[in-house]
């Protein structure tokens, strides 16, 4: 059975890689299978990890009188059911309510965290090394790094000003900002490509050793 699984995996891997040549029936078969299986998998996952434990079980416990707190689940269940009003031309305007609640709640949860992690913590992290410079505990290289960081942040931030025209000194400062961004992107590119090559090696290793092992 294990050998059969290896053969199926190898066949599908080769089907997907055949896309590198051109679109063909093998790729199409693997693509449709992949899409279909993933839809089914997500459906089962959502049912077992979302609907049953979060909605059905508490609600059923409330109906049977085991735990009345589950009745509160009626509110999100009803809001969720409003999504199905899409199927009625007369009532489909109701779908806007769950969408509005979802976007509102999602943004409310996301924005404070984004502000905290991406703005306040980053600003503090940029300033903090200067306390160490004052205390005289940083080496020359670290001092250079801290100063470079502030210059980079200020210049990059200038690039992202949208309500002022980028002319004169602002234009040059924002150009330096873009240069900092591109240097950062370049290093991220190299880093990620290395990761992708590792994934390719893993697949080739599977084909050569696991699959090849069943042939030779």
């Amino acid at each position, binding site marked *: 059975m294990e050998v059969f699984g290896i053969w199926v995996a190898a066949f599908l891997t080769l089907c*997907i890689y055949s*896309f590198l040549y*051109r*679109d063909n029936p093998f*790729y*199409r078969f*693997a*693509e449709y299978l*992949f*899409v279909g*299986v*993933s*839809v089914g*998998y*997500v459906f089962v996952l959502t049912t077992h990890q979302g609907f049953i434990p979060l909605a059905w079980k508490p609600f059923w416990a409330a109906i049977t009188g085991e735990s009345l707190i589950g009745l509160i689940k009626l509110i999100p269940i009803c809001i969720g059911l409003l*999504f199905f009003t899409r199927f009625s031309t007369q009532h489909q305007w109701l*779908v*806007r309510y769950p*969408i509005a609640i*979802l*976007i509102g709640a*999602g*943004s409310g*949860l*996301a*924005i*404070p965290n*984004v*502000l*905290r*992690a991406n*703005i*306040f*913590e980053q*600003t*503090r992290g*940029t*300033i*903090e090394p*200067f*306390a160490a*410079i*004052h205390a005289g505990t940083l080496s020359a290289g670290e001092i250079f790094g801290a100063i470079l960081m*502030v210059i980079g942040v*200020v210049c990059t*931030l200038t690039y*992202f*000003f*949208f*309500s*002022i*025209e*980028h002319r004169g000194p602002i234009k040059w400062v924002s150009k330096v900002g873009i240069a900092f*961004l591109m240097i950062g*992107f*370049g290093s*991220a*590119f190299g880093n*990620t490509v290395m990761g*992708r090559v590792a994934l390719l090696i893993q697949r080739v290793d599977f084909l050569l050793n696991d699959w090849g092992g069943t042939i030779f």
Partner: protein
Amino acid sequence: MIKITQWIVVCLVLCVSVGIAFSQGLSPPSNVTAVDTPNDDGSSVTIKWDAAPEDSGISGYQILRRIAGGGLEEIGEMLPAGTTTYVDATIEKGNVYAYIVRAVTETEATVDSNETAPTTGTDEWFHTGRIPLFVAMLLFGAAIVWNIYDARSGKEIFVRRIPGLEAVDEAIGRATEMGRSILYVLGLGGVSGPATIASMTILGQVARRTADYETPLRVPCRDPIVMSVVREMVKASYLDEGRPDAYNEENIFYLTSGQFAYAAGVDGMMIREKPAAVFLQGTFYAESLILAETGNSIGAIQIAGTDSEHQLPFLITACDYTLIGEELYAASTYLSREPMLLGSLKGQDWGKVLIFASLVLGVLLELSGVNWITTLLQRVG
């Protein structure tokens, strides 16, 4: 005879342990308290005790827990000697717990603290530690609202040129001339993701133009809720342009939620339908290069935009134009020129001025040995 021997061994071990404990002057952990962890959902209790002197001989602590009416049980791993706090996050709401902190020496001798008063986990409605963040958000929100009112009152608000967006018309025009479709990919983000919201706003503007030119607009969605919202938005755009007849709901469809299955599906569409223009706007992960590379291989004009900084290098490499980070948010304002979005953009720029000022002032103050800006940022963060 065997029983007597066992008893003697047990007594000897106990005597040796107690002897070692006393010989090292091992004293039990003092001032042990167990209180409900503040600002949580009632799922944890915090146990605190005083630090033992360095020469106490203690090598670690073990926490013991008693559920009301039950026996003692060990929880968690052995804690290192310097520890004075432990958060028990394995409690169940409604149960009452008491704790003992057991000091352990290198020779495995132990001594227990007094049992704490019974306590239970309770959930709090307000996270008092987040008040500074709340105040900061209020100020930021006030700046945005102020600018929105300004924009609505007719005040001219300038938005700088964003090169990638000037290519939108060019891309749509090219698709129209070639008689091919436009493929709009919203990425993998959920409906509440800022990048997805920005992408949907851009899509609304793109749909206005495709409605005018009668160019087919195909939108494969990864999230069924995003699909519902997108259908509403595109329909509204077609209605606004007076072309409800040109709107085809079937062109906005759910593909799959699986990341690479979605990428495989979109790639297949690109290869078979050969759209003249591809928009990749939203949140992307590892599939970004797969999508952008395929779009590039079919010769489509590609306009990308994302706030996923790790994917930006790939989009910049493989696409004709790329909106970097916040440019994606500004793009919807640039295209629509709606007063509300213009005001919001201006308000965000005010926020950036504030960050800029904090940086410069913070650096100067830190160099003079004054660290109140860092402390303030730490409290807010």
